[in-house]
Each structure stands twice: as C-alpha cells, then as structure tokens.
C-alpha cells in the first residue's frame, strides 16, 4: 500500500535547509528507518538541496522554490525534490576516488564530496529533467519486520 506524505514547498534559500531536514526526519520516522538510515537520507537530501540552492538558483541569479514530497510503500520510502533552477544532473559530476579520499586534507580536491555522500548514503538515487524542472529522487529500503529484513 502506498502512502503519500503531504508535500512542502520551501524557498530556495539556505535558511530553508533546517525545515527541509525536519521534513525528511519526520518522513523517516513514519517509515521506521533506523537512526543511521534516517541520517543518511537527511544528509543526501540536504546535499542535493544545497547544490540546487547555490548552483541552480543563487549563482544563476534566479529565485524560486523547492518542492519536497515523500512517499511510502511496504518496501521503500522515497523523497522527491523538485526545482526549476538551472539543469543539474548530480550523476554527471566527477566524484572523488578512494585515492582522493585517502589524501591528506591539504591535498584533497574540494568538489564532489557532497554527491559522493549522497550516493554512498542512499539505496537508490535518480535524477530526471522534465520540461524546465529538475527532479531528484532518493530511495531507502524499509527494513520492517516481516519483509525479510531486506
């Protein structure tokens, strides 16, 4: 059975990140995610939303909103984040390698760390561009009693 969590529309400003985080925390609680999984999901959404706000809107001289919508079914929770900022496919970004991550801090590349944390933290991540909208979709498996723990 699928359940939609009431969506929220937030201004695309960094000040909105805490409200966005609260939305994801509430959704994770409804889904029964454990502490680490809930944190990873919140972190992933925070990282992508930060990119949207900074690169998709502010650096492009745009203002706008971010629409956030959670959905639950028996096996998964998904959080979709939509915006009308400039097109940005996180999956096209070059990520740090294991070698980069093992380098001393003073030699580390700065970029790509946020998206690396997104991809490491969630069970599935997808990006879609439809019309003038970006849509980022985060999925976590629900490890509920009775579904085999997977």
């Amino acid at each position, binding site marked *: 059975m699928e359940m939609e969590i009431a969506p929220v529309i937030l201004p695309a400003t960094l000040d909105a990140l805490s409200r966005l985080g609260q939305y994801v925390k509430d959704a994770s609680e409804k889904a029964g995610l454990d502490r680490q999984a809930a944190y990873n999901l919140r972190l992933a959404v925070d990282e992508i939303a*930060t990119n949207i706000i900074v690169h998709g809107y502010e650096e492009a001289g745009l203002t706008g909103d971010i629409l956030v919508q959670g959905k639950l079914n028996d096996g998964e929770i998904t959080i979709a984040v939509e915006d009308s900022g400039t097109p940005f496919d996180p999956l096209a970004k070059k990520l740090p390698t294991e070698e980069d991550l093992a380098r001393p801090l*003073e030699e580390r590349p700065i970029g790509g760390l946020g998206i690396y944390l997104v991809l490491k933290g969630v069970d599935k991540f997808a990006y879609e561009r439809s019309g003038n909208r970006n849509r980022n979709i985060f999925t976590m498996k629900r490890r509920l009693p009775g579904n085999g723990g997977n």
Partner: protein
Amino acid sequence: MPFSAQLAVVDGVAKVTLKGELDASVAGQFKETIEQAAAEKPRRLVLYFNELEFLASAGLRVLIFAKQKMGINVDIYVIGSQGPVLATLEMSGFHHSVYLQDTYGDD
C-alpha cells in the same frame, strides 16, 4: 539545537566546540571561527564534536580549509565524534587525516 561554534585558545591550542547542526546555512559561521583560530597561530586545532548532531559536506570543506589555512604542521583533533557524524567522517576519508579521539588529553 541551533548551531554554535565557540573558540578558546589555551597554551597555543585552538579549541573549538561545535554544537547543533552544521550545514551549508551555517558553514560560514564555522569558517569565521576557524579564521579567528588561525589568526592566533595555534600549534594544534582541537574540535569538540560531542554535541554536533549533523555534519554536511559544507562543514567538511571547512575542515579542509582549516588545514590549508593553518598549515600542514598544525594537527587537527576531532574529539567525541560518534554515531552518524562519525560515520560521515569515516565515509569521506577524514579519519586518514585527522586524529579521532574520545577525549583530549588535558580536558
């Protein structure tokens, strides 16, 4: 808990106590604290993470900035990091470059 970063410099050791949620909206505040710490030319930077509840990559980038600003001879200690925040540090490889400890010697 709102984010805060409090600096104390004791015997050449810059100690920064972080509380709350460190995301991109407050990373600038953390960076300013690191700049104040760097101005004191410390021999060591000790960051207390005991009450840090959330750490985004914007906060990790300030750690990289701290190392680059203070120089390779200033070791960074992260104290009291636990749970998901510790997991984030490890996932992003920071455990290779900072000293992760439960407590700091003279506290």
